[in-house]
């Protein structure tokens, strides 16, 4: 316990509570969601749920609908059918910024940091939904704005400490190496104090060492903050090692869901990944 780093914000995870105490059954329920763009069906009747503190993984070949699932959760896409329920109420038609405020944060497959801002500014921007100073308070600076900026800075520094990016603090992110940018993006999402973190391929394009670092950060976040996570990843070793449950998508359809070892043995999954002929033999 003693060697754990303390963050200045507490987790809001409800993992230990009963259904009555929480007031909802699952943290997130994704029910029979279908999403199509004109003729292309990106998602067909996809259902899953995520509980508090759970590490849920979504895998599948390219174009299976993993990122589309995230975009539905974030409110970037609005699916035509089905429902997305966050803590017992539907967020199907909410705007992205509203969903962020509710406690869903995200990192992106292709880094979506703000390239002209420094690491500090990027992570501080993540505090946007947890701060409330109005623009006129900001214009005056002295008083409320200054107090909030200082409090923000303390939280941001804790996150920088957790992710071990101290030496890059003041750099514009566009100048940083890829692996560090990925960490900054994770930091920006953490700054939102989320209850659910969507990680879109956090170790894509990373070498073994960087992958292990990132896995350590993901486990740290889970252990210290108890944040539920949905992980989209192609690195099967990582997924099978750290995920609690895994869902497999193929061509927008759910073909398997369950514990990593069950999913690995599923014939449908083997067919999707290795091809029909191999599975038949």
């Amino acid at each position, binding site marked *: 316990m003693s060697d754990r780093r303390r963050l200045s914000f507490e987790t809001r995870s409800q993992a230990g509570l009963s259904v009555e105490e929480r007031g909802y059954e699952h943290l997130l329920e994704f029910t029979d969601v279908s999403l199509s763009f004109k003729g292309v069906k990106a998602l067909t009747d996809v259902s899953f749920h995520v509980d508090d503190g759970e590490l849920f993984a979504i895998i599948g070949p390219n174009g299976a609908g993993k990122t589309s699932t995230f975009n539905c959760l974030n409110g970037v896409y609005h699916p035509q059918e089905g429902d997305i329920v966050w803590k017992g109420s539907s967020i199907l038609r909410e705007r992205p*910024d509203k969903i962020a405020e509710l406690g869903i944060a995200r990192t992106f497959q292709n880094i979506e940091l703000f390239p002209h801002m420094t690491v500090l500014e990027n992570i501080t921007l993540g505090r946007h939904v947890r701060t409330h100073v109005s623009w006129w308070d900001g214009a005056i600076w002295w008083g409320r704005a200054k107090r909030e900026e200082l409090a923000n800075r303390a939280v941001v520094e804790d996150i920088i400490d957790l992710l071990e990016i101290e030496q890059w603090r003041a750099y514009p992110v566009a100048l940083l190496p890829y692996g560090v940018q990925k960490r900054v993006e994770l930091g920006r999402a953490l700054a939102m104090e989320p209850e659910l973190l969507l990680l879109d391929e956090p170790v894509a394009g990373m070498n073994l060492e960087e992958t292990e670092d990132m896995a350590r950060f993901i486990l740290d976040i889970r252990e210290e903050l108890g944040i539920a996570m949905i992980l989209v990843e192609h690195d099967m070793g990582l997924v099978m090692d750290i995920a609690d449950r895994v869902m497999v998508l193929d061509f927008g359809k759910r073909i398997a869901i369950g514990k990593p070892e069950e999913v690995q043995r599923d014939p449908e999954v083997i067919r999707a990944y290795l091809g029909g002929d191999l599975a038949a033999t």
Partner: protein
Amino acid sequence: MRGRPNLFTDYESEMALFPTTTKRVAVALLLIFALLVPLGAIPGLSFLQESSWLVLINRALVFAIAALGLNLLTGVAGQVSLGHSFFMAVGAYTAVLLGGTPGKTVWGLELPIWIWLPAAGIAAAIIGIIVAPTAVRVRGLYLAFVTLGLVFIGLHLWRNFGKIAGGPTTGRPWPPLEFALWKGDPIISFAKDGPWLGVQLTSDAKTYFFLLVAVIVFTLVAKNLMRTRIGRAWAAIRDRDIAAEIMGVNEVRGKTQAFAISSFYAGIAGALFAVILGRLIPETWDLLLAVEFIAIILIGGAGTIAGTLLGTFFVVLIPRIVEDITFFFADQVANQGPLAWLGDLFIRKSPDDILGFVSTGAAGPGLSIFQLNVALFGVLIIVFLIAEPLGLYGIWIRVRNYWKGWPFTY
């Protein structure tokens, strides 16, 4: 922290506006310099207190307020606007409607400055809020064209609302820069010569002090906005709007606030611009004025306060400096002074002069000084866009980093 007195030991001192001693000293010296300018007390630069220079500097100060506003909208929030002169006009005409003297052909309510000046800003801000939703629908170059449309709608309106704008060729007089509690004799007048604290000052000098204070206040507000919640949200919308939304930034609200605050700056600057000119025609608020502000933030350095201020003084004062230099060399050539050989290179002396291309007289062949300035302006924008996208501010950063690392290269 023995031995390292300059080390930051808390976030408060690191996040201060002027975190280092060097910066504090530089700002203090700049302020003292600014205070001495109209008194003619600076050795070698005492000519700055002459009316012709002071009027130009006052114009630069007014432009600085407008440019700070455009910098927030275009430099920080990334919304390219060519309609800044329109918002300035809204401010100016609100001011004259509330503060101007009524006549047979024009309206005016003769209200004091503490009503018409804030009202000028607020009226422009309201128009800005009305325009903002288009920025949510159209982006980049398309938004530039939508705002460009505002300039021409505005020009049409000002030409046709003679009751507000005055005659199309004569305009109308604006209220003077005087502070009164209500109608009647002013308590403080910036528009009349006279002594302040025992020092004899011209109206230009008094106006200068008023504008200097205004610029300092507006600069601080802009800087504070940029370093707090709203400024980060603007920068996020500029860099990646969809990612910004997913991080919880309300795009519609962010853009609306950017337009409102930027237009407020423009409205105040427009009112003050009209007031220091005294009288102006509707054509003042044309596209050229709007382009001038885009040039200011591009040359100065988009998204930076120091760059905006540098750019303003550069763009406003350079024509005068070019003029003075040209006349100096023309004089050298005419009187065979020690620098005549240099002047020979570009001063046109006769119609068959091969090298010279600038003539001081209006009738002479070759470029007039005005044309030279216009050409120079265009060349400067091209050079800055290609060679130094961060503008004058970028050059300053490079010079600073060179000396920071000196004698090492990095």
